[in-house]
């Protein structure tokens, strides 16, 4: 990738991060102030001595909370993601495969001109890898299965792919997204549970009478809208993550080829990762978009077409392998590695 392309990519990622944070804050503000509005309308026509919801403290608390969460996600997101996969940091080792991994990571750091990232090993038999990080430090994590399955050259291709994500600043956006999706999912789960419990509780009580007026109706409508947003938020946030991640994979594949000057070995590595189709148990749904191959082993990733385009976190493996092979072929024919095909 030329300098201009790289800077453009980094700029796009910064802007996307800003958009994601804005949407997240707006969502919390709506959850908070929307709730306030509903309560305000519902209590507006109550007797003067009863409670009147006039100060929008739910909104204020929710917005402040969202600000805190975003700050926390930016700072501790990488640690949380690594912790969730049960990865252990690789510093010094006696095992030959792990020594090779350390060497390969350092080689790729040199090739990309970046400081060497920290290395983590995920105890999982399925081959997979991901990168995470913020503006302070970067991390590359691979599964034990990857170390056992791939040859040295193939491992180099995979590490180069992750290095490219780090260099393009993809990891910052992706990690932020993973952390925020986690929070939204948690909140939505809580909302579902509360609804379920309060639904049962109200069965005997026969509902709350008295708030019949026009304002009360409007309040009820807003309350329903409010609940619906809370319930479908996880789905929407995950769709957002999907749209963000797919194009990046192709870009990172191309950059990996630039680093190693060996597109063919990344292609065979992807094939091997693909062939062991068991899901990577250690890596959950919320951070699926961080990985080199879809860890959930979904069939969608293998298909092309509209639905797959809409829902898969990764482009079809066939397309990625074909592109890399085309690059390898051109490189062999002309001696010049194409930027992409």
């Amino acid at each position: 990738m030329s300098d201009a392309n790289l800077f453009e990519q980094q700029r796009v990622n910064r802007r996307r991060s800003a958009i994601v944070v804005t949407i997240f804050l707006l969502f919390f503000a709506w959850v908070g102030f929307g709730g306030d509005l509903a309560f305000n309308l519902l209590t507006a026509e109550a007797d003067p001595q009863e409670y009147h919801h006039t100060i929008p403290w739910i909104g204020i608390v929710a917005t402040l909370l969202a600000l805190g969460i975003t700050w926390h996600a930016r700072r501790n997101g990488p640690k949380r993601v690594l912790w969730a996969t049960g990865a252990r940091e690789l510093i010094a080792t006696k095992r030959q495969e792990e020594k090779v991994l350390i060497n390969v990571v350092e080689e790729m750091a040199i090739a990309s001109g970046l400081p060497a990232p920290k290395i983590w090993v995920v105890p999982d038999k399925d081959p997979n890898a991901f990168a995470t990080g913020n503006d302070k430090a970067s991390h590359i994590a691979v599964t034990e299965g990857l170390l056992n399955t791939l040859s040295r050259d193939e491992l180099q291709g995979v590490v180069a792919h992750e290095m490219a994500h780090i260099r393009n600043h993809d990891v910052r956006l992706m990690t932020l997204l993973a952390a925020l999706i986690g929070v939204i999912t948690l909140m939505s789960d809580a909302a579902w549970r509360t609804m379920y419990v309060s639904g049962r509780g109200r069965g005997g009580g026969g509902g709350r009478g008295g708030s019949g007026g026009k304002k009360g109706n409007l309040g009820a409508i807003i309350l329903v809208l409010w609940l619906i947003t809370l319930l479908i938020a996880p789905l929407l946030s995950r769709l957002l993550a999907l749209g963000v991640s797919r194009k990046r994979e192709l870009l990172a594949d191309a950059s990996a080829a630039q680093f190693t000057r060996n597109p063919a070995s990344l292609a065979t590595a992807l094939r091997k990762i693909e062939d062991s189709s068991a899901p990577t148990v250690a890596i959950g749904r919320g951070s699926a978009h961080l990985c080199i191959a879809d860890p959930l082993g979904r069939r969608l990733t293998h298909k092309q077409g509209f639905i797959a385009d809409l829902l898969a976190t990764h482009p079809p493996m066939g397309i990625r392998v074909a592109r890399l092979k085309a690059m390898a072929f051109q490189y062999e024919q002309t001696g010049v590695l194409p930027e992409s095909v």
Partner: protein
Amino acid sequence: MTIVFVVILAAIVVWAVMAFNRLIALKGQTLNGWKQIDVQLKRRHDLIPNLVNAVKGAMEFEKETLDAVISARNQAVKIQADALPTGGVAALAQAEAKLTSALSGLNVVVERYPDLKATSNVAQLQEELTSTENRVAFSRQHYNDIATSYNVLQQQFPWSLLTGFAKAIPVELWEIVDDTDREVPNVDLSMK
């Protein structure tokens, strides 16, 4: 009228500062890339005595191969001491290429001793050597990429005006001078 003049002058100054900074930034990256090569070459040179010591005992009668490696290494160390991006890159590249071919000669010999290859110490050293060779190659690749953009920028029009000011001079690329790559193999099919 004077205002227009001042605005134009200010614009030129701002542009010149930005262009100057870009040249300086690229110069810094190029020198950094060169330093990285230096580090990796030193690593390579330090590793070779270890490797030679590890295999020496088992390979007394391959003395020539070992001597070739040692002398190529010492030659490379000497040349590395005063090579700079602005001069001496070609000589260093040649010395390192000689060392590479001496090392691959040694590797061929090691392959002939299965017992030696089986010792974990030698296996580890071989991985170290592979990694070191890769590091040298990748740092060279990175240096060449960044040095090329630096050289090109110096020749492009608006920036070329500022090269003297920024003390920017074209740097040498690390060309591959591996003689074995260029040589045409001698094939004799006469079957005498």
